[in-house]
């Protein structure tokens, strides 16, 4: 991950506009710079290439590619961002798949906060 250069830039990927709005509110309230939002997997990948965010908040359930696949492709990019998966489900529901994917961690949507996100990004870097 890039060295500390002021507030971390974040990309929010979720097909629910309501959640994206709330996540933006939360992250911005806790010092993140939300540089973009994406509602689907392919859109997310092109947004990563274009915006080069520090962190990607990535929903597992997307209408086109699923979050794991997006994470795999993003990880293949040069200087990949830190990816944190989110879902309204619990991590246990995905079994081994979260552990097998190159992500910094998983946050259940109800537990989302800038603090949790920051901890995972720090820990995963």
């Amino acid at each position: 991950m890039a060295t500390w250069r002021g507030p971390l830039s974040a990309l929010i990927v979720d097909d629910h506009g309501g959640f994206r709005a709330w996540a933006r509110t939360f992250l911005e309230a806790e010092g993140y710079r939300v540089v973009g939002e994406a509602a689907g997997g392919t859109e997310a990948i092109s947004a990563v290439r274009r915006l080069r965010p520090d962190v990607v908040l990535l929903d597992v359930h997307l209408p086109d590619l699923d979050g794991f696949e997006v994470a795999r492709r993003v990880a293949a990019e040069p200087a990949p961002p830190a990816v944190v998966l989110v879902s309204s489900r619990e991590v246990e529901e995905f079994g081994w798949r979260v552990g097998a994917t190159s992500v910094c961690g998983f946050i259940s949507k109800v537990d989302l906060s800038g603090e949790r996100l920051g901890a995972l990004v720090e820990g995963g870097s």
Partner: protein
Amino acid sequence: MEVRTAVGGARSIVARRTRRRATLAVAWAGLGTAVLLATASLVLLVVTPPVAAEPTLTGSRPVDGGILLAFLAYSAFGALIVARRRDNRVGWIFLGAGVGFQLWLFAHRYAVAGLVAWPGALPGATLAAWLTLWIVVPGFVLAFTFLPQVFPDGMLLSPRWRPAAWFAAAALIVWAVTWATVPGPIAGFPGVDNPVGITAIGRLDSGIGWVMFVLAVLASAASLVVRYVRASGVARRQIRWLAYAVAWMGLTLVVVSVGSEGVRAAEVAGEVLFPLAIAGVPLAAFVAIFRHDLYDLDVVVSKTLTFGVLVALITVAYVAVVATVGAVAGAAGELSLTLAVVVTAVVAVAFHPVRTRVARLADRLVYGSRATPYEVLAGFSRRLGGTLDAEDALPQMARIVGEGVGATAVDVWLVVSGGLRRVALWPTDPHRSSPTSPEAGSSPGPGTDRVVEVRDRGELLGTINLTLPEGRTLTPTEDRLVRDLAAHAGLVLSNVRLLEQLKASRQRLITAQDEERRRIERDIHDGVQQRLVTLALALRMAATRAGRAPPTELEARLEGIAAEVAETLAELRRLARGIHPAIVTEGGLAAALESLAQRAPVPVELQLTPVDRLRTSVEVSVYYLVAEALTNVAKHARASTATVALDRHADHLRIEVADDGAGGARPSPGSGLAGLTDRVAALGGRLELDSPAGGGTRVRAEIPCGS
């Protein structure tokens, strides 16, 4: 050029046909000669008055008569084989041997009549007596050396066996000449000297021809054994029987030769073995031909054979009875016509039960392990009565058909939605190349010789496909048998198809159930759960802001949260209704349909005849049916109005949902409507979709609702 070729082809066909006709004429003439000679011999046998010390061939008149009829089998086989396979020497050998044997027997009876019974009454009796000396030789050599050498294809095993054939021919000549020229009295006719007796040849040991014959038989037996060892499959089974018979003949001849050197035991054994060996060869050829389909003669001859065996048996019995009665009465030669008629009548009546027994025996012999057509059908029906289990019935059917007509393979195909599926095969060899699925009603597919359709009340249910041995076709009898079996099979196939349909429907119901559960889970996840997530986040945000923000902001936030909770509740209700429409059980079907109509995006006219409460499963199905139909109206029909009609006719509930939209709806597999079709079918009802393009859509269902 082409024209000339065509003309040449036509000419060669004509020539072939002419040749074929000529061959057939020769074959039937040979058989006719043999039958004529046999008849004449029989007449002589019966009319010749018994004489003291009468010369017989076998020791008694009835046995002579029996042998005579048995030898007829040679000519009959010969003619039949020639008729089918005129290029095959086996037929000609049988035919020739048969005529030779009959000549021998006739010459003997003629000589007995002309020289012993009525001396001087018949012309050429001496010539006949001379013929008895040697005319049997060609028959013996043909039947016991040439036949095993070329059986069954009419060719020598290989050119290397040619010397054996030449040796047999030499044996024939030496044997015939030495026996024909023995000087002095003719054997069996003391006082009649051989007219061509040649002392010079007579001085030769008359046993030399016999020894050569025995050696030729042994060589031929060896050839047949080698052929047997090299053959495989059916060919082997065909050869096996003749190999036994010829080996038996070789052994017998050795025993007889030893016996003629004065060994008493061998002489007695020879007397028993020899007739058996003579009968064995045609019998073995018979088995090869009829049990193992050699020359395709089996069914052709079935009836002829039954008849022939009958005639032979009755005649032999008749001759025996007549001879016995004649001897007992002591009325030599004075047998009256009346007595003959009475005896015949008695024999005919007495033999009636034997007749049926013989008929069945002949059929069994002819069909071998395949039972008679009647038995096949009866057995099939019996098995059907025992089991209607599809897993059992179809393979059994394939096996019965296959064994019944002697097919090499049988496939049973079932008409299923979207084509034919093979449901049984015989023999059950999974590696057998399976012919490609034939089109229903088309000509036989590749590798199949006969396709019989199985129909039930005109509807094509499936086909029975037969593969026959190379070059064989079904005889009319077999064809009829297959068609009769196919008629019986209609019941089995319709049963199997019902089971298949039931299985498929169950499968679809389960799939639909799973699909439904997944949809509900997705609805919960995407809807209520998301809302609750945002609610939780909103509440947390409100909590963090509670101390800092002005009360108005907090108030606004809480108002928003309350509205969100109300919407979440509404969505939960909608979901619950999808899982089970409580309104049906609580408010009744009419109320439930009204609520559906109210929520529909187009105006819905309800035409509901009041009906009593029905089984919950029926009411819920009706509710889902109407809900699905109205959803489709909203989604696809581009309709302005819709009608929902419900009434009860006797024991049936009739529901119709109609709209005035675009029409052209097709129930796709896995669609809501397809699921409903199964659901309605599960209740014993049926669902129809009528949706002409541009003519609106009509979904009609009838569900039995009797108490």
